[in-house]
Each structure stands twice: as structure tokens, then as C-alpha cells.
């Protein structure tokens, strides 16, 4: 890897009432890779994501995006270069699937014919039937909603894709199908992505690099095999054992 990482978190700390704090976190998100943040609830992984997209500001430390420090003043322009998918999809209920996906392109005044062809591209990519585009979120299934949410996040061809437990609320079959599609999409687009999950199998399947967090600190990062074979602490082993797959039983 010669190129600088797309995103760098350097000594990031954030403490506040009512949400998980993070302490002195350093993370690099490499171009074209899928980085997975994993850890128990309240370990601070969502906080990190929300710091990167500017929903929160760090108490100390620096976040660099594409080599430049993140400034509140131009945060909206950075946001246009980042796609963001949350667990419930975050689709606006008063807009159809189509308008949800096209919202930002229209807001930025992108050319109509460009956005229309981009939309059909995305439908194909995310395996979302075009004839459902005029449905409202409430008229779609959970899996369909997440596909639309993904299309919305990818609409502006973002350099970075942030996914906060995107598959957390789905049933196992739909979830498996979407995992497979996500992996394909990331590969096809050579997409830089940061994904949060608490499912180790999902992390291993989708991630090039796994970052395990606990109580606001990074415990260990690397491949699943590294975590399993050379655990940095007792916690790593405990966490991995807690997620035994059926095969182990």
C-alpha cells in the first residue's frame, strides 16, 4: 500500500452523557478496502462512525479525509463524498424510493438524464426491481428498504461508504442474500467502506480488516485468523468464543 489512507482518525477522544465514549482511537481506512468495526453494544463503534460523518465533533484528536483535516465549515461538501446507511434504512417515509435515492442529486442540481441512467445502474447493482421505485418506504419489505438505502448512499458515487449495522434488523435468509450482494457490490465498485456489525461471521465474510473495540478503545485489529490465533487479550478470545457458529456446536 503506497497511497495514503482515505480516512485517518488520529488520537480521537469523545466523552458525553448518554452515548458510548471513545478514548484515544487511531484508525486508518484504506482505499478500496472494507474495514469492519466490531464489538459489544456500547463499545463506541457507532460513535466513531458519527464522528466521521460530522454528526459529532471530537473532544480531541484529528480526523483526516483524503489527507485534509475535517472542518465544520465545509462538512456538507465532505458529506457529499460519503454514503451513509443505518440499520433502519433511514429512508424518508414521505418520499418514494425513487425520490429518496435521487434526493441529493436533485438538491445538487445534477443533470436529469445522468441521474436517471445512474438510477437504473444502481437498481441493477443493488438487485432492486425498477417497478418498485414509485413505492413508499412503508410499502417495501425490510430487505428492499435496505437496498434502496444502499442505492441512496451510492447515488453520488461516494469515495467512502459508512454502514451502521445495515443488516441488523433483517431475518437470516434476507440477511444472507444481502451479505452476498454487498460483497459483490464492494468488489465491483472497488468501494472503500467502513461497516459496523456485531456479527463476527458477517465481519469475516465482508471485511478485509476487522477492528475489535471494547469500552471505547481498540482492542485488536487484523484478519479474523489473527484475532483467533494471536488474541491480544482475554477479551478477544471471550468475544470470539461467544459467537461460535453452528459448526462448532
Amino acid at each position, binding site marked *: 500500500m503506497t497511497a495514503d489512507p482515505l480516512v485517518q482518525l488520529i488520537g480521537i477522544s469523545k466523552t458525553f452523557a448518554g452515548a458510548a465514549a471513545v478514548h484515544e482511537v487511531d484508525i486508518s481506512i484504506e482505499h478500496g478496502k472494507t474495514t469492519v468495526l466490531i464489538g459489544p453494544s456500547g463499545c463506541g463503534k457507532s460513535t466513531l462512525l458519527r464522528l466521521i*460523518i460530522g454528526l459529532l465533533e471530537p473532544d480531541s484528536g484529528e480526523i483526516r479525509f483524503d489527507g485534509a483535516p475535517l472542518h465544520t465549515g465545509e462538512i*456538507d*461538501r465532505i*458529506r457529499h463524498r460519503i454514503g451513509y446507511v443505518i440499520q433502519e434504512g433511514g429512508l424518508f417515509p414521505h418520499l418514494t424510493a*425513487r*425520490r429518496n435515492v435521487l434526493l441529493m442529486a436533485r438538491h445538487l442540481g445534477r443533470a436529469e438524464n445522468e441521474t436517471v441512467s445512474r438510477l437504473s445502474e444502481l437498481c441493477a447493482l443493488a438487485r432492486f426491481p425498477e417497478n418498485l421505485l414509485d413505492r*413508499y418506504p412503508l410499502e417495501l419489505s425490510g430487505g428492499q428498504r435496505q437496498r434502496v438505502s444502499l442505492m441512496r448512499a451510492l447515488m453520488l458515487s461516494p469515495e467512502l461508504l459508512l454502514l451502521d449495522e445495515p443488516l441488523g434488523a433483517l431475518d437470516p435468509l434476507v440477511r444472507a442474500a444481502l451479505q452476498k450482494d454487498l460483497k459483490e457490490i464492494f468488489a465491483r465498485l472497488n468501494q472503500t467502506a467502513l461497516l459496523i456489525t456485531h456479527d463476527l461471521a458477517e465481519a469475516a465474510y465482508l471485511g478485509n480488516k476487522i477492528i475489535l473495540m471494547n469500552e471505547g478503545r481498540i482492542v485488536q485489529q487484523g484478519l479474523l485468523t489473527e484475532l483467533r490465533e494471536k488474541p491480544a487479550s482475554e477479551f478477544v478470545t471471550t468475544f470470539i468464543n461467544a459467537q461460535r457458529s453452528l459448526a462448532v456446536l
Partner: protein
Amino acid sequence: MRIRKAGRQERAFRFLLFSCVPAFLIFLSGSLSAEPVVIGSKKFTESYVLGEIAKRTLNDANIPAEHRQGMGGTIILWQALQGGQIDAYPEYTGTIVQEILKSTDAMAGAVIAEALGKRGIGMTKPLGFNNTYALVMLRRRADPLGIRTISDLRKHPDLKFGLTHEFLDRQDGWSPLVVAYGLSSPNVAGIDHALGYDALRTGQIDVKDAYSTDAKIAQYDLVVLADDQKFFPRYDAVFLYRLSMNEKAIAALRGLEGKISEGTMTRLNAEAERTKDYSQAASLFFDSSPGPDGNSTRLTSRVSRSRGGENLGHKLVRWTTRHLELAGFSLLLSILAGVPLGIWASRGGGIGHLILGFAGVVQTIPSLALLALLVPLPFFGISVRTAIVALFLYGLLPIVRNTATGLQDIPRGLRESAIALGLNPAARLWQIYLPIASRSILAGIKTSAVINIGTATLAALIGAGGLGEPILSGLNLNDHATILQGAIPAAILALLVQWFFDLLDRVLIPKGLRL
């Protein structure tokens, strides 16, 4: 194209908000145009009739005049007179001394006139009748017992008294009267004024309190017991007027001095209550006062109930139009102020609490009190403006609160998605937050609208008209038919408004939220 649809909703919102502003300004400027002499009256029959008499007298002297009926109580009229919203109104000397000059002692007419003169107000000499408290009995009950005066009651301690609560409570009412006349352990019950007459007629009570020119005196053939100890203060009817009013108008009003006797006034009151038509009753005064014709011929000719030219349909249209103006403009103001305040309040913090707190406090002020508080302020006075502002303040809370709650209830995930997408704050508000909160906001507006239709009936108290007009005169005359002329249209209006907003929901609430 489908995609354009939400844009249309947004435009509809904006249109609704902005299109009515110029209309409102036009409306305000219209109400500021040149004025004739304005006569006010309090909200009871005699005052209405005297107001009509004054108007007709001025008109006969070629002075343009209008009469704002039933504007409320003494304080409101007095302030309106001082503030110049009205030029004259009928008042009683006893009331002037006690309520306006705040004196506990009786004052001679010249002394009263001098005290008023210092405040820029003139007073005519008494119009000729004294409308004070009185005790009354059925003639057929009093005569056999030989009761003519209040002192005579001492000889009949077994008589049953049915007195209004007001009379029982007044400082110058029942208690001092008992002392002054040395009445012994009388049998007393509190009873509503109107019901008291029925009780009197059916013999459940023998004596009741009344006003000495009460229309019922003639109707039920009652005797007014003479106040032989001169216990009751004098309530000589006079006109109060602004000294700055033009001299011809003052002269015309003074022409009424000493012209209206107790008997005449009682008859005019009875006529007003019977026909429900004050101008008709007032015209009886002109017909019966010295003129070429005797009064009896005119008395029979007006029995045909042609209501002074304006039929019920026209009146209903006039009342309803005014009512809608009052409720509509005030609602518009409530929306224009309430939605932004609600947006502000939704951000929480000290200011948010302050806004919600203020709107809540306004709501707890009784509507009558709010009107009374607004009337003395320079810009307001007795006017449509005051009514609209009061209604506006009442309509604020539901809109502010629903807007704030609707916005606060937007799930965090949606709120953060809008931010994370990189929409600027204005776009987030107009395209995301307000449409998602639209159901709650519209529910608030609907509540305000329906409340406004109801509360707008109170506008009649300060002469602002509307469907409250017939309700007030009906209450005043104890006439259910007249009350219903206002109450039924008001209820129908409330239903229509409800229905209209249900329809509006379908246009303004995005389809995706109605699934």
C-alpha cells in the same frame, strides 16, 4: 411526473402561508377608514334601545352615526369612550359614581359632570327615568295585603323572597337593605333573575329584586314597591359623550334630556324583548313622542314584524361572513407565528421552554379577561383588530405545541440521515422535517381553527360582530330562538371547518405518511 409531487406539496404550504398576507393587510386598512359618530351600548336590552334612540336622533339631525351594540360592561365602554373608539354611550349616574369615579358616597349631578369633564367626557342631564334596583311583587298579591312600600314588608314577615345572587352579594344590596328597613328574619332564597319571574308568577316566591324599568314589570303586572327610605342610590340614565365630539351631535343628544319617562322606557324594553328588534323598539319612542300622530296608531301598525329592513338570511350572511373573517384571519396569524415559534421551540433549551410556557399561559387567561386587557391598549380598543388579536393568541398554543412535538418526534435515524446526506439546514427543514411533521402540525392548526370558530362568538362582546351577536342578544333577551340563530350556524361552521381540514390533510400530508 411523479417526482414533482412533493415539490407541489411544499409549494402548497408556502402558498397557504404567504398568499393570505396581502389580503390581511387590505383588511386592516379597510377597518381604518373614516368614521361617523359611533354610539356604544352595553349588553342588555335597555342599553341597546338607548343606543338605537341616540343613533336615530343623530341621523334625524343629519349627523351620520352608527351603533355598536352590546360591547360588554362598564369598564370596556368607558375605556372605549376615553380612547375615542366610541363617541357616546348610555350610562347611569349610580354606575358612574361607583364604578367610574370610584366613590362610595352619592354625588350631585353637577359634581359628577365636573369630575368627568376633567377627563374630557361630558354628561347629559338625566334622560328622565331612574333605573335602579327595586323590589317587586305581583299586583294581585300585593294589593290584598296593602303593600305599597318596602316599609310595608315589615308587617308581613312570612313573605318569601327570591333574590338574585348578585343582589344578595352586593355591598349596597340585600344586607344593608335589611338593616335600613329593619326587616325581621325574612325567608330568603337565591334564584336566577329570569327564573325568578316564573317563581313569582306561580307563587313560589312573593317578592323579588328587579330593575325599576324592567320589561317584565308590565308583562307580569308587577308593582314596584316604593323605596320610602330612599335606600337605593339613583341610577338616572344619561348619555356620556366625548367633549371633543362635534357640537351639533352634542346638542342633538342633549335634546333627549328629560324626554324618556320610566313608563316609556319600560314599554320600549318590553317592545324590544317582544319583537327582538331594538331599532323597531327605538322607533316606537319617536312615534310616541310629540308629533303629528297619536302613539296608539303607530303601536298597531308596527305589529307586522318587518325586521327593520334586514331579513334573517341577510343577517346570517353578514354574521357568518364576519365570523369567518375573525376566525380566518386570526388563524392565519396563528399559523404564521405559531409554526416558526414551534420550529424554534422544537430545538429545546431555555427559549423553547419560554415559548411553550408563554403560549400555555395565554391559553389559561379567560377569554373575557383577555379582551378586557386588550381593549385599553392604544392600538386595540373596541375593534375587530382586538378580537382578531385575542383569537390569534388563543390559537397559538395548539399550533406551537403540535409543531414542536411533531418535529421532536422525528426519529433520530431520519434526522441524522438528512444531515449525513449533506442537505443544508433549509432543505432539511422544508423537504424533510416539515413534511414528516405535517400531520402533527396540521392537527394543531385544525384544533386552533375549531377552537377559533367557537371563541369568535365572544368577539360580539366588544362589538366586533359575528355569530356571537345573535347569541348575546338572545342570552340577554332570554330568547332561545335568537340564541340558536347564532349557535346553529357556529356549530355548522365548526363541522365544516373540521371537514375542510380533513380534506386538506389529504392534499398536504404526503401520501407516504398516510399508508
